[in-house]
């Protein structure tokens, strides 16, 4: 995978996702997650060893957006670990699906985004335990998951045009075929 192309795309998606939130938010401030679409696109096609790193970068970028922890700054970790864990999901699932299809992207948006949201919610919930950070959020885990589900539905809808756009640029990404010796199942 061409990391420069990945970096530029992540930069643009991050800027648009954070800057355009007011323009396309619906309901209680639900917005699509462009970086998740990018993570899925890379996860579907990149070399096996590059997928966890690229999803880790995406997770860190999402952690750097203002999060639910109040006043004390930006906590890097919950989403980064969530996306890192989700990279193993996408690596397991991608061999079972037709990689060139946009529908595959929609399915994987739910799988990757759902798994990352689960891990993230668990990590934030653990912060409420007194023998860890001892800083409970004023926002229940179920409420977080419900919000993430709405975001996933919105992201899945946006993933179709964005996925087609990314698919059209597949040549510049430098995705190689499956390396010799990579396990399929």
């Amino acid at each position, binding site marked *: 995978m061409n990391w420069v192309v990945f970096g530029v795309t992540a930069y643009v998606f991050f*800027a648009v996702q954070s800057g355009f*939130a007011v323009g396309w938010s619906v309901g209680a401030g639900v917005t699509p997650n462009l970086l998740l679409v990018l993570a899925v696109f890379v996860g579907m096609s990149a070399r096996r060893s590059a997928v966890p790193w690229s999803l*880790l970068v995406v997770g860190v970028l999402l952690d*750097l957006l203002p999060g*639910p922890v109040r006043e004390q700054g930006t906590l*890097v970790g919950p989403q980064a670990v969530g996306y890192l864990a989700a990279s193993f999901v996408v690596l397991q699932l991608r061999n079972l699906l037709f990689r060139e299809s946009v529908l595959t992207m929609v399915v994987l948006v739910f799988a990757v985004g759902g798994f990352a949201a689960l891990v993230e919610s668990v990590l934030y919930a653990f912060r409420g335990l007194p023998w860890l*950070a001892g800083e409970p959020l004023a926002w229940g885990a179920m409420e977080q998951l419900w919000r993430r589900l709405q975001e996933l539905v919105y992201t899945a809808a946006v993933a179709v045009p964005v996925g087609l756009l990314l698919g059209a640029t597949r040549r510049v990404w430098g995705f190689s075929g499956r390396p010799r010796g990579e396990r399929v199942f």
Partner: protein
Amino acid sequence: MASPLFTSQRVLLAVALLLLVNSQLPSGVGGLIGGVLRPVVDFAVLPVRAPVHQIAVNLREPGEDEASDSNGEPRTAEAYREEYEAALVTIDRQRQRINELVRTLEVLQGVRELDAPDTVPVAAKVASYTDAGPRAVLTIARGTRDGIAAGQTAVFKTSLVGRVVEPVGPSSADVELVTSHDAGLQVRVRQRSRETGAYTVYDNIRVSRGEPAGTFFAEVARDSPIRRGADVLLADAVHYPDARGRLLGVVQNVTEYPPDPELLKRLVIRPAVDLRFLREIAVLLPENDRPQDPGRSAVNSGGGGG
């Protein structure tokens, strides 16, 4: 000898463990990595993010296009008369508005606390709006280089917007909106009499976050004369000492208070401006933190465009 792939896996595992531990540390310690990375990323992304935000606000800002008029010239005497009558109505309305503004200013000056610290407003462009669920945040394109620090108050004209929170970078900062404030806030409600036009101020009212998000609730006695349209002014000396007298919102609705409908009723308060669609706000700096370059600051707190 270890293979490169194995080394990569080990590094990945180490990073994952570090992030896992970091996510469980108290935010004062766990926020250190984010406190370094966030300003760097903001600095890199702001040139793109700020124009994108302006475009998004232009697309979604409510009620801006209603005043557009047609370019056609009136051609008949009837059309001229209609235009003349419409202009008379406009003049009358504007005169009434001037009177209201004069009265509002007088009342504002009257309720502003004498012991409030002196502040200098610094205008800051809004680069993005993020709704992270339990809190909503505006990212502004001003930072420590302009004297911005955590804890300072952000306003838009006479309305309170929120407070600057960590991390504050050299050229960017986060403002947590007042609608995300968890603890209660002490307010005064100012209501204009329908008959005389005089204002009455009701003290010692406490507001808290309401549902849906972005609103406040306040419980008052059932026989309280406060009605829809009354102004809610901040009077909290603890959380916003330099913003007392600022407009927190307007009473949008008066409803039953379900836990005790016989004794109390509930005021539903909405911010006077939609805080999501602000293009520019002003951050109140302590007088002695005034920036050296006067060209970078807007001294008039009403200078922020919306």
